[in-house]
């Protein structure tokens, strides 16, 4: 393993922002894969996954370097500054680095960070981004694929996770890292899991295993693995959005990943002052809870759950 400082950004009063990479296998050998940890400073699950990957692969490389057939670069995080201040975005101006790609070397600070990261990561065969959902929800681990007309969704089955969410890119996606990787011809996948600002070691382990499985399937490393789910490719058409009809204290009755049946109570909303029951949220279909609102106070019309419909043809 080679530990590198990929680039730095100086600060007035703090240590420089250092973005580190951990490289395994021979540089420029193929197939190659870059794994980028959280861009936002609240992706604790993703930081955990990335750091465990570094630790695991370092052990394996020490044991037997010939296990590595291709090159792997892991960048556990792009944004230590924000992690150290418990902020999601760039501490100075609250801009999201993941809307700055492909970046601009002569531009604003976060554009420069994006440009330097992109320059270091845009020449790999496979590019994986670890991400927490950006909205207020926790979710099951899944692979997000931007559908640009290629076969990435099929290829995402190699992760062995239960669900692959394929969707058309929005205008917002066009400035994201994963989209720009893709248009620069990398096979790009985003692994989404958990809840921002928290650590769920169980779900993180599933993502960790999925990445190892993927690296093996792509013959980048050679390790024994278990086969897992063949993956269900879903689109927005397969997802039922359930909103809270009222605001108040949100009491979820089901965890993410739970199978629910049509008519099953899945949450209750109580008046925040007098405690009266305002609403019982009912599952409108059979399916799996893929996302759940993650805060005990809920807004009226906020999305309380997303359910992957079981009756839909996947």
């Amino acid at each position: 393993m080679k530990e590198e400082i990929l680039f730095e950004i100086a600060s007035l009063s703090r240590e420089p922002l250092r973005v580190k990479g951990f490289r395994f296998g021979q540089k420029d050998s193929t197939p190659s894969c870059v794994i980028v940890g959280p861009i936002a400073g609240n992706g604790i699950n993703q930081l955990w996954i990335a750091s465990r990957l570094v630790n695991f692969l370092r052990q394996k490389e020490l044991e037997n370097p010939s296990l590595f057939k291709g090159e792997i670069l892991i960048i556990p995080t792009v944004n230590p500054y924000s992690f150290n201040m418990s902020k999601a975005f760039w501490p100075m101006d609250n801009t999201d680095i993941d809307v700055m790609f492909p970046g601009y070397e002569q531009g604003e600070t976060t554009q420069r960070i994006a440009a330097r990261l992109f320059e270091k990561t845009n020449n790999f065969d496979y590019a994986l981004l670890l991400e927490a959902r950006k909205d207020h929800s926790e979710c099951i681990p899944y692979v997000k694929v931007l559908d640009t007309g290629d076969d990435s969704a099929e290829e995402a089955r190699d992760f062995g996770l239960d669900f692959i969410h394929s969707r058309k890119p929005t205008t917002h996606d066009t400035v994201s890292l994963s989209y720009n990787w893709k248009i620069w011809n990398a096979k790009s996948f985003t692994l989404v899991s958990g809840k921002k600002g928290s650590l769920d070691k169980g779900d993180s382990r599933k993502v960790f295993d999925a990445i190892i499985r993927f690296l093996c399937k792509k013959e980048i490393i050679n390790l024994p693995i278990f086969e897992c789910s063949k993956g269900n490719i879903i689109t927005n058409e397969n997802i039922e959005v359930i909103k809270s009809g009222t605001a108040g204290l949100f009491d979820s009755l089901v965890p993410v990943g739970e199978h629910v049946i049509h008519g099953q109570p899945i949450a209750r909303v109580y008046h925040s002052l007098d405690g009266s029951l305002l609403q019982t949220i009912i599952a409108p279909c059979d399916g799996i809870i893929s996302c759940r609102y993650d805060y005990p106070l809920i807004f009226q019309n906020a999305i309380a759950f997303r359910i992957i419909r079981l009756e839909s043809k996947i």
Partner: protein
Amino acid sequence: MIEEVFRVNLPVEEQLTLKRNRFSPIDRDAAGQKRISIVTGIHGDEIEGQYVCFLLAKWLNENPDKIHGIIDIYPAMNPMGVDSITRGFPFYDVDLNRVFPGSTTDFLPAQVANGIVQAVKGSDYAIDIHASNIFLKELPQVRISRSNADELVPLAKKIGIDFIWVHDAVTVLESTFSHTMNTLGTKTLVVEMGVGMRITKAYGQNLSEGILNMMSQVGIINRPLTPQGKTSISTLNSQVHFINSPSAGVFIPSLEHNVIVSKGEKLGEIINPLLGEVKDVLLSPCDGLLFTIREYPVVYEGSLIARILEDRKEI
């Protein structure tokens, strides 16, 4: 007339409402009349538009007989943000001006965006007033994407604002209020002026006069035109230079805002307070108008320091 265009319950004993003040003709049927929407406060820390809304509403209150069309004034599209000096949409921490056109089935900021669109839709014109953020001070300007220039530049000129900046559109700007409304057929101008969290009275007075002039020219009000003190500048054939900080430090400006600078003239210094050293001296790359200057002194490498409009021939 105060109208509520969006309402949603908040979790603890409060409702989030979006309000507008609608001014209609008193002596004729409003149906078929032209309609303009004045929108501000999408970014909660940009307060310049509050004063403009006040001045417009004051004039309209005092001159009901001169109203020929419909004027809707929306002072606070992000009410919790405005009342808490928060740029984004509180709790969700997203930029409301990046979730348009919004949706009734998406998260709360998208629902609010959708509520704004539904309320403004059908207007002939809209003006979305922004201040700069807290980091930069801007000369009053209308920003127009190049694809809309033919249609919107003539409208912007009616405001008589200091500067019209025609720029190349970035794809992500398709999720803004102005792009959405222009797509829906409402001619929408974006005004930027001043600095975040502050009100620059002269800018507000000039812009409100300019908007009244514009409304007069399109037949929404009946008022003699007032002279505008400054000349509009187009960037159609000009070049805007961005000056970014080459290093981290504290920016100490050498010039005031809104001045003509010469190529090689000193704009300011980046200093290191710990070492007592000047790290970089920033020079103007061209002759031109200094229309943006950094207001917040602490900078990283890349922080925007200034923007200069080269080529004064068009003024």
